[in-house]
């Protein structure tokens, strides 16, 4: 029993990331009708937002401490972050320590901005082009974004630790322990998913967007400036992917190709959930995350070797062949 | 026995009854028009004939063989060609290449892997294609990219592609929809010519009464998914039931 609960828990953090990325992909696909292969890159940029913030917060000045010397006998240069000198050493260092959660505030405007630029500058011109063209151009964009990040941050993963208060291990029951940050990540993703759904459900803006997802032309005929709303939607989707990336840093150190790694799986998730279905994307994200974690159990692997590596793809193939619309897809979307 | 026998065909979409108790017999070498107000089920009926939809009940026999459950390409190979409401052609190909495809389908059947021979060596087929293009006055456009042609030309090309297969039954789905008067008249002339010169049966769905009465030998009026009347054109004109059906729509 415990091991089952543990596997479910283990699946949740990856599932959360899948769900968040797939949610954004589906938003973009459902509203704009665009297949965005650069979405993984947005996730990756989000993760690097927290790297950037960490660096900004760590900006330091050097002083020479005459009381200490290095091994050659020279006076030691000591780096002091500006924050520590402004807010005092304690306050300053704890701000630095909390750089990942703080990066949420930093990432939201950055990601929305990037989303706007992407949509207005590039995606807009591809609404009427075939899906293959959209895939190709966003694939190119993903390469470009990835290479820019690689140029500035290098090819190696960069550690972005969680604040100490959240990086321990939680004793859930007498026998189950689980990293605190993963619980945080799961709750955070639920929060974001809830916020997106509430936004779509309870605001007029959301209503128009939902109507647009159902029938774009009719909404356009009502004289509603649907294009502009969709630009904002793209910004929101970018922010969702970015936030998923920001908070994922402490689980997996950000590197420039993490976006591509997640992209492939997220597409599989979207397809399993049903193209254009938001609840489907979330459901499939969590389901596949948990399934993957079950497949990695030792008992399962000894039974069917290698199953943990291929389970997601296998599920996707079976779903696509038996239920082409995915778990919760609507009729007529991309058939 | 007609060449096409539709018996007791019914089709529902969820709660909506699109077709019920449709009985229709199309006689060989006639032009049979199916008219009716919007939403009468004309297009649904047509889709049931070509394999796009499968009716819930009833049977559709073509030359004594059932078409139900067969896929569109099999039904075409039986001798039924369809012209769409908006012309469906191969927009990326030239007019000439468009013509070659139905010719290959006619000669080789639904599938044959000719990967090594060259299209330009198919002398007889090329001659046939050119002859057909000449008949519809499009020989001078043979190298044109077909997507860049006018709607009227696309319609003529589509018609030529269907005719070159020498189908026994030609299904026309509002062939003059959205056409200017002059184009409509040209199409009527073309269809008349086809009818007179060939052994062909035509079933036509049409809104434009002018077209219907210039072509049809027999007219079926469809309303709310059921045939209302079937008669010769001159008897349809003043038929009270028909007027009722159309007036009903006007309300």
């Amino acid at each position, binding site marked *: 029993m415990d091991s089952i609960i543990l596997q479910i828990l283990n699946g949740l953090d990856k599932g959360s990331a899948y769900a968040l990325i797939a949610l954004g992909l589906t938003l973009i696909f459902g509203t704009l009708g665009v*297949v965005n292969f650069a979405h993984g890159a947005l996730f990756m940029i989000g993760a690097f937002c927290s790297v950037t913030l960490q660096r900004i917060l760590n900006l330091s000045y050097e002083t020479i401490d005459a009381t200490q010397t290095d091994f050659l006998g020279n006076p030691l240069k000591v780096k002091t972050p500006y924050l520590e000198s402004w807010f005092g050493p304690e306050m300053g260092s704890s701000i630095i320590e909390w750089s990942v959660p703080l990066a949420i505030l930093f990432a939201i405007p950055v990601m929305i901005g990037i989303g706007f630029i992407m949509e207005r500058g*590039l995606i807009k*011109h591809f609404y009427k082009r075939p*899906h293959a063209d959209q895939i*190709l*151009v966003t*694939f*190119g*964009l993903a*390469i*470009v974004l*990835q*290479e*820019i990040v690689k140029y500035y941050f290098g090819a190696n993963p960069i550690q972005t630790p969680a604040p100490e208060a959240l990086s321990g291990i939680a004793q859930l029951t007498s026998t189950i322990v689980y990293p605190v940050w993963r619980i945080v990540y799961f709750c955070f993703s639920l929060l974001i998913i809830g916020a997106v759904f509430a936004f779509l459900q309870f605001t007029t803006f959301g209503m128009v967007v939902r109507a647009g997802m159902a029938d774009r032309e009719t909404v356009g005929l009502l004289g509603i400036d649907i294009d502009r709303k969709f630009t904002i939607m793209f910004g929101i989707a970018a922010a969702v992917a970015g936030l998923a990336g920001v908070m994922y840093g402490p689980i997996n150190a950000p590197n420039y190709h993490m976006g*591509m790694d997640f992209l492939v799986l997220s*597409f599989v998730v979207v*397809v399993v959930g049903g*193209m254009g279905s938001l609840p489907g994307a979330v459901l499939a994200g969590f389901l596949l995350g948990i399934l993957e974690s079950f497949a990695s159990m030792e008992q399962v692997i000894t039974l069917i*070797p*290698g199953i943990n*590596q*291929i389970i997601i*793809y*296998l599920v*996707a*193939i079976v779903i*696509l*062949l038996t239920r*082409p619309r995915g778990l919760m897809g609507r009729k007529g979307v*991309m058939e | 026995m007609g060449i096409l026998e539709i018996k007791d065909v019914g089709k529902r979409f969820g709660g909506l009854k699109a077709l019920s108790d449709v009985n229709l017999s199309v006689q060989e070498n006639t032009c049979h028009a199916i008219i009716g107000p919007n939403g009468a089920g004309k297009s649904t009926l047509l889709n049931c004939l070509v394999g796009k939809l499968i009716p819930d009940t009833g049977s559709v026999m073509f030359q004594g063989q059932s078409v139900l459950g067969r*896929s569109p*390409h099999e039904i*075409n*190979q039986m001798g039924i*060609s*369809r012209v*769409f409401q908006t012309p*469906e*052609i*191969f927009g*990326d*190909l*030239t007019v000439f*290449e468009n013509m*070659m*495809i*139905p010719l*290959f*389908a006619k000669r*080789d*059947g639904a*599938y044959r*892997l*000719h*990967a*090594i021979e*060259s*299209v*330009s060596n198919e002398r007889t087929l090329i001659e046939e294609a050119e002859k057909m293009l000449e008949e519809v006055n499009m020989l001078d456009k043979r190298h044109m990219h077909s997507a860049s042609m006018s709607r009227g030309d696309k319609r003529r090309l589509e018609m030529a*592609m269907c005719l070159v297969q020498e189908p026994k039954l030609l299904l026309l789905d509002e062939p003059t929809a959205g056409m200017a008067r002059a184009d409509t008249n040209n199409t009527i002339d073309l269809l008349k010519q086809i009818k007179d010169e060939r052994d062909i049966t035509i079933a036509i769905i049409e809104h434009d009464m002018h077209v219907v009465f210039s072509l049809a030998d027999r007219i079926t009026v469809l309303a709310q998914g059921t045939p209302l009347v079937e008669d010769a054109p001159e008897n349809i004109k003043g038929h009270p039931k028909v007027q009722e059906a159309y007036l009903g729509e006007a309300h």
Partner: protein
Amino acid sequence: MLGLDKKDSTLLLIVVALTMLAPFILNPFPTESGLAQFNAGYPDLMQRFVIFGIFAIGFNILFGLTGYLSFGHAAFLGIGSYSAVWMFKLLSMNIIPAILLSVVIAGIFALVIGFVSLRRTGIYFSILTLAFAQMSFALAYSVLTPLTNGETGLQLTLNDPRILGISQTADGSIPVTNLFGLEMRGAFDLVVGPWSFTFSAGYYVCAVVMLLAFYMSIRIFRSPFGLMLRAIKSNQQRLNYTGLNPKPYTLAAFVISGMYAGLAGGLMAAMDPLAGAERMQWTASGEVVLMTILGGAGTLIGPVLGAGMIKYFENIFSKINDNVLHSWFSFMPDGLEDSVVFIIHPFVGKGWHLTLGIIFMLVVTFLPGGLVEGGQRIARLFRRKKTVEPKSAKTEPAE
């Protein structure tokens, strides 16, 4: 000539001339000159040019003609490589049986994967092929280790049986791949003044195979089969209602392109007898997509150009470092030179991927016909200047 019309024959002859003279064309700089590092005429790279050319030609038969975008074609390349290496291990070091087996095995895999994947179209097809390829990749890394040797990759050893050959040579080393005795590693250098040109046996074997593959693809493009494939891309509905069943056609195209990929994989192993799972990864599939689109999908010569361009970027363009840049711009005043180098720096050398990505985006956005369309537009521009009458060139979709 050979059943081709005049235009295609000319194209084929040009390609024959270019590939046969490649050792000269790709080594334009004298060995001692500073530009010698931009010489691409060494056997290893030349082989890669033509092998990836074959891969892209095959991919183009599927994507360029039918419009089905496969994101999993590298799987067939990997399968081809594994099959060939196994042939070297078990049978003999002659490359013919190895390459034949790789084509056949890749074809069988393509038949199965294609049969399943082609039940869906559009993005669903792309995702299915991607899923199959990623599965093959993951399996090759893990469970199939006895067949693939996992992360290390499949290599020849001194203990391989090689029934028709020898396990090891007289001096106790692993025998080299050959074509009836002609060793693939064999090469001779021709030195003309300051220039040096390398003629490699392996390259010429690959080049001949590529020419055959290219010739086959011209025949396919001009055949009724090719016409059907283009019709599938254009309007599947009309094709259905014209009495044709698109499924066998697309499947045949998928299998043929899979066999081309297997051929490329087999040749790769024939030149360098090892095979690794990373050849099957989806990024490798992405690469052949890039090649085909960049050169011009649906055109005859485009994929070969695209493959050449990307491999040139990867191997030569990536060598441009700051020193080279400084030497290029040394004629400028110091401050200007530094800033120019600073601006260019991210795009060259290790940043070649960035340049490639940008070019690719530009091509997809503005030149859907790739480099070939670009060339045609330029040619048309010149023609228009020459002739007074700007008769619009008749559109020949497949050139």
